[in-house]
């Protein structure tokens, strides 16, 4: 299965990544290889196996609704590229919700 450049650009857009033309070419190849491997796996007969999202046999792992200490705002903001008081500051975001 060969991914088109258009598909690669679409995936990059969904991940908000800016790709150069060279990268589009390279990733088209790499992603196609990954898909080819998935195609390979699909040749296995899995008719008798129920769809499985997890391999370990855990169920119903929950915790009680109890508050535990958070980080301090200073710790939280320590690596923020930009801050404004106790807020993270980012480029303006308009529309969407």
């Amino acid at each position, binding site marked *: 299965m060969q991914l088109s450049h258009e598909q690669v650009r679409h995936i990059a857009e*969904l991940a908000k990544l800016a790709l150069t033309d060279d990268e589009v070419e390279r990733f088209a190849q790499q992603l196609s290889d990954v898909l080819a491997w998935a195609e390979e796996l699909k040749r296995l007969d899995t008719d008798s196996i129920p769809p499985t999202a997890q391999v370990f046999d855990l169920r*119903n792992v929950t915790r009680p*609704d109890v508050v535990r200490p958070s980080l301090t705002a200073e710790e*939280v903001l320590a690596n923020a590229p930009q801050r404004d008081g106790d*807020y993270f500051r980012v480029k303006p975001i308009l529309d969407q919700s």
Partner: protein
Amino acid sequence: MNAPRLCYTTPQYLCRGTRSAMDYEAVIGMEVHAQIRTESKMFCGCSADYASATPNSHVCPVCMALPGVLPVINQRAVEATVLTGLALGCDIPEFAKFDRKNYPYPDLPKGYQISQYDLPLCIRGHLDIDTEAGQQTVRIRRVHLEEDTAKLVHAGDSSLIDYNRAGVPLMEIVTEADLHSAEAASAYLVTLRTILRYLGVNNGNMEEGALRCEANVSLRPLGTESFGTKVEVKNLNSFRAVRQAIDYEIDRQRRLLDAGQSVTQVTMGWDDVRGCTVFQRSKEGAEDYRYFPEPDLPPLTPSRAWVAEMRATLPELPAARAARFVEQYGLREHDARLLAEERAIAEYFEATVAAARAHTEPRGVANWLLGELFRLLREHACDIDQCRVSPEGLADLLGLIHQGAINATVSKQVLEEMFTSGDAADVVVRREGLTQLNDHAELARVIDRVLVSNPKPVQQYLDGKQSVLAFFVGQVMRETRGQANPNIVGPLLKDRLEKQRNR
């Protein structure tokens, strides 16, 4: 996004009720996001009380999505969701799982939201609502559990992010497209909100965003079955906004269709200030969320025994309670509904009825609650659970009225004093000297004083003008600071006046 901001104004002659070239039926489905009232967040132990906290003070490596952290499901949030599902008559499947909904946005630290895609906790329910057109059943498609996003503050040339809200438990309640008017959509929301508050799973506050609503609106020619193109309307932060926005959107689509144009599938936002829906984004290709099962969270398999246990904890819901109030206490349906609407008020009412059983009918209790007590609560912007008059205290007051120790006028004054001071009825009555005057001799003296100082009305009465009696009763009440027993004053007054005639 540089989407054009369009605002369609509604010319008067095209307002609702005007004739279209064709008759359309509106088809509306609702999506409600309700923050679940938990102590901690959905997947970590940070406090979920984000509203009053300083920015970014309820944040930890899990809700900040630092590498290598693992989420763990909040048990209470699961219970609240299942409880809601059961209250809405949903099935609780034996297998539910979480999924990742992928989209990059600064309010989403992980770059995906943990939500439920194809196997939610609750499916296939229904809710009965009362609309102008009569009772209607709205089918509930699903109730699922997810996490809230961070709060964005837009500040001119930048946006500010507070991650306190990121990871707060959120349930989404989705209906089938069963609603056909803005009024019905609003009625659905009112009914749902009442139930959520009854269950104690959500505080119902729309303005603060604890309860958020989106409507999917489309039109189709009346009598047809297939659906038209639907438009999603967001930013509905009040019941009024829900009604206005849906009405507006129905009208906008009708005009497009009447003009031979087609409706495009978009997301619109309600602009409360301008009173119109505003284009937000195109749906085309936008919803590519690439859902996949959340590998960090094992699935939930609610056992039938546990579901039965949850069902047993369901409180009596508002509709059933109102019906019982009519049946059991003989209340008028309107009053019963008002009293059953909020759990705390319904419980207060029933506790008062029980405490006052020996002397006051339930209807009498209802009148006091709906009248004087509600007025005091409103005037003091006070909730019933902060009310300093207990059900037993109110019952004692009603007892004093029944005994004739105080009259109706004074009793309102006593209640107000009880409400502000927190003192018991008899304490207030004694302290303020408000005991009802039943003493004939003393009342006769007061009446004579009143008659002497009002010779003109006396003459009018003697000339046959009965209506001055009310004036005299009023004067006697004034003289006695409202304490005179009107049942004694009336006859006594007549008696003294008649005596003057015979002089």
